[in-house]
């Protein structure tokens, strides 16, 4: 994992952020994961961290959130990733405003207008749609990945700032995830069936959901842990293997990873570092 950490340092852009790939403009998501990985990994560079934090701090929008990258004039789900960074590291960021932006977001499908519309059309609402999750992009439906990451971010925020609304949304978010399981017991992007046809789970989203549900009981999770282990045995993706490792470790499992294929973007590299750190007892997502 030292090599992954070093590679991350080598990829940092001059402006302090990271691209998804070896070259390209800086984006919020890879910058946050790279910062988390540097906090967890064996290779450290205070200069790199400071430049990255400066990049992030200068891009907090007036509404409290972050856009995915420069040139996009909308705060999105990536705001959760900034709130996931260790609080002691992000002193220059207004975490309260960031949390308020996140709390203002819900999936459009759980809103009163949409549910009333379905009622008037005589269409039964999906029971899972009564729980508020989080969307990727404002004004759209809630999905598994942004909901899972926002749960983790709000839990971190709640450890320092006890807030009843935060706790309610955390509870709703957990219910959303538990209700969005596929027929095989795992999670895909969040669409468990369409037109009566069931969908199967994906490895990476199953791992992330298991991580976000780290407080769930075995009874609540059902076959999800066994499924996660099966996904991990079969997965060749570093990103999927990392999320599954992180998700299984928090439930006391000891995951073993096979060979992963070598084409790796910045996010998978950072997740690889974070998964390895979690194996060593340092899981930055839940600590």
């Amino acid at each position: 994992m030292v090599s992954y950490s070093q590679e991350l340092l080598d990829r940092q852009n001059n402006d302090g952020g990271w691209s998804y790939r070896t070259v390209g403009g800086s984006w919020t998501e890879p910058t946050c994961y790279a910062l988390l990985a540097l906090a967890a990994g064996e290779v450290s560079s205070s200069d790199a961290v400071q430049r990255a934090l400066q990049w992030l701090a200068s891009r907090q929008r007036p509404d409290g959130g972050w856009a995915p990258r420069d040139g996009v004039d909308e705060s999105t789900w990536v705001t959760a990733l900034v709130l996931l960074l260790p609080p002691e590291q992000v002193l220059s960021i207004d975490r309260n405003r960031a949390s308020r932006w996140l709390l203002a977001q819900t999936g459009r499908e759980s809103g009163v207008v949409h549910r009333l519309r379905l009622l008037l059309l005589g269409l039964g609402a999906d029971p899972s749609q009564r729980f508020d999750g989080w969307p990727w992009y404002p004004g759209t439906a809630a999905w598994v990945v942004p909901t899972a990451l926002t749960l983790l971010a709000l839990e971190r925020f709640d450890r320092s700032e006890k807030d009843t609304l935060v706790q309610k949304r955390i509870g709703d978010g957990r219910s959303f995830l538990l209700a969005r399981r596929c027929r095989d017991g795992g999670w895909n992007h969040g669409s468990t069936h369409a037109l009566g046809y069931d969908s199967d789970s994906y490895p990476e989203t199953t791992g992330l959901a298991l991580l976000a549900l780290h407080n769930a009981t075995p009874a609540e999770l059902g076959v999800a842990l066994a499924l996660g282990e099966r996904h991990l045995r079969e997965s060749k993706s570093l990103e999927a293997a990392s999320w599954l490792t992180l998700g299984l470790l928090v439930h006391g499992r000891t995951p073993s990873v096979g060979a992963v294929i070598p084409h790796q973007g910045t996010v998978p590299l950072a997740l690889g570092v974070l998964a390895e750190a979690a194996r060593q007892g340092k899981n930055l997502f839940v600590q």
Partner: protein
Amino acid sequence: MSSSRPVTRRQWVAGAAGTAALAGCGRSSRELDPVSILRVGTYSEDLYALMQRIISEHRLDIRGKRVVLKPNLVEFDSNTVINTHPKMVHAALEAFRAAGAADVRIAEGPGHRRETLDLADSAGYFSTIPKFESVFTDLNLDEVTKVNLVRPQSKLNSLYLPQTILGCDLLVSMPKMKTHHWVGATLSMKNLFGLVPGGVYGWPKNMLHWAGIDECIADLHSLFPKTFAIVDGIVGMEGNGPIQGTPRPVGVVVAGADPVAVDATCCRIMQIDPQRVGYLRLAAGQDQVREKWIPQAGEKIASVATRFALLAELESFRLSGSGSGS
């Protein structure tokens, strides 16, 4: 084919918006360009020669141009045929290079799975296309620019779009011939959903669903009206497409410079009524997808028509008089 076809909405929008520069390919008389229906039995046939023939017969002048091939890469399931076959894409890559393109890239932004390269690997792109990673751009994570929609059909006023697409001279949409459980059929126009960056909008690109799927397809078409279409219909997908359907051998590749005409022709081959497909109506109007307005080359539709199974909810899309045989 008549040279007095009325100006279509997409042509008008293209002119008004000045979007020709987005994806112009240097051709002169697009209205006269036919839709080619080429019989290809299997993926083992000489697909490179096929692509050369398409480039030649459609008089694509691509010398010195930047070409982007946009396959349909969605998910991988070894039990069915979700994605454009990698041999098709490889053959197109080599043929466009040989025809003098300055640069040919393969680009896609899958809507469900974030790990595009892993998906491409599973789908056989790495093993089929030499140095795949060096010629591929993940459109979900590409640099983006905001583009305003002129007279949008959807609820969107603008879209962030990838620089790789905005900067190319010719966009080639290379979809799989599939049914689609919401819009009837997914072909060269629906394939443009893959241009919309997940890095901005997420996975799935749910913004497009709330803004109206048919309408967003029409809007994307209005931004890229000069897209060249090459449809992989050698083995298509019927039933619960675009992901959970079953393979349906058709044995054709359909190509042309007018995506509306190509998609309407593909619908007829699948025995789906193009006039019932919402995005075709929005993009072209009811008249423009009539068979008599679309010049055909190669095989006749009737000789390759293959009745695709449709979900019960989509039986209203069935081409009337298409019978029940294959």
